């Protein structure tokens, strides 16, 4: 049984797939570079080998053609017929609660963390260093305790 739509039978067997995310109608993609960098869109239609018709009503991206090169596929798919109107894309997006799921995903959290790290001031960096030091000290202390207990048990 083949699960994918565009006939990628070569890549997908029942047990293990090399590719797990496919370009399909309704696939939510993350825009990696360009003017809409960092936003999510839904692939509404495929124009040709390199471009897709893309729409992000809930993320502030107008319906437009976008090259696949700047899209990174996410795990989310919304149920939408091809070339569906923006109204229905929005409806499907909100029903699937994509924005909420995205915020909870580790991908989004990592992006957020990177942003915070980039805007850290010198004082913040010092505070982080002190916090890390304290944390590692506590961890090492507990580890040593366990090691000691383990070595004592052996003896």
């Amino acid at each position, binding site marked *: 049984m083949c699960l994918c739509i565009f006939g990628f039978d070569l890549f997908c067997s029942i047990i293990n797939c090399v590719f797990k995310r496919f370009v399909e109608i309704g696939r939510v993609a993350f825009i990696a570079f360009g003017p809409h960098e960092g936003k999510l869109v839904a692939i509404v239609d495929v124009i040709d080998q390199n471009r897709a018709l893309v729409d992000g009503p809930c993320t502030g991206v107008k319906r437009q053609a976008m090259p696949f090169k700047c899209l990174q596929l996410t795990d989310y798919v919304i149920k939408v017929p091809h070339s569906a109107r923006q109204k229905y894309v929005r409806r499907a997006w909100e029903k699937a609660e994509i924005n909420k799921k995205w915020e909870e995903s580790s991908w989004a959290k990592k992006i957020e963390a990177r942003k915070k790290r980039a805007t850290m*001031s*010198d*004082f913040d960096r010092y505070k982080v260093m*002190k916090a890390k030091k304290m944390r590692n000290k506590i961890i090492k202390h507990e580890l040593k305790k366990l090691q000691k207990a383990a070595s004592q048990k052996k003896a």
Partner: protein
Amino acid sequence: MAEGDKKKEGDKKKEGDQKKKARKHGSRNPVLVRGIGRYSRSAMYAPVTKVEKKIKERAPAKVVKTVGGDKNGGTRVVKLRKLPRYYPTEDVPRKLRSHGIKPFSQHRRKLRKSISPGTVLILLTGRHRGKRVVFLKQLGTGLLLVTGPLALNRVPLRRAHQKFCIATTTKVDISSVKIPKTLTDTYFKKKKLRRPKHQEGEIFDTEKEKYQLTEQRKADQKAVDSQLLPLIKKVPQLKGYLRSTFCLSNGVYPHKLVF
């Protein structure tokens, strides 16, 4: 307005009186024949009684100044009224080479926008390089007055150059701190005691090699720091921050850092 008019009328009357008096006198040149007078023009012009002209003392046009050094005549003759630099034959008057060049005391001092009183600076040069320090104010020559505080990082009240500091975004509220007005550039200026009287043996032996701490410096330091330290203690972890030094390590690129 009315008064002014009155005054003018009065003046006119006076002039008229004077003219009438003068007219009464008439011409002093008797007529010989119609069209020919007794005295010539120059005789008429010359006064009847001779007036002794006062010889005006003219200001000297040249000054003789002495010049030091050997074998150069010893004196120079300096013109006081020099020939004009600009003759109106040229379209635009030529500017002096020193036009617009001001002496150091009149230079415009700038201060980076990121530096304001209370900013924490990172010193980059000098014996206190890498230390984080509190900025107090900009002095007359443009240098920054800075203090450790001494108790935290052994940086006393000191001058720092703007170009060799990184301004961080961390600021301490210094509005309540009163800096003694005696802290100026002359206070901090290095004293030179080199008197090259004997050039034979002790050329490099200057009297003041080591810096001597004065009581006034200690007193000023105490006065400023006693005001600063409680403000620093209010901000959590700021004390430790000022005690630490700045350094770069692997993966840390200054152009990517936000200070």
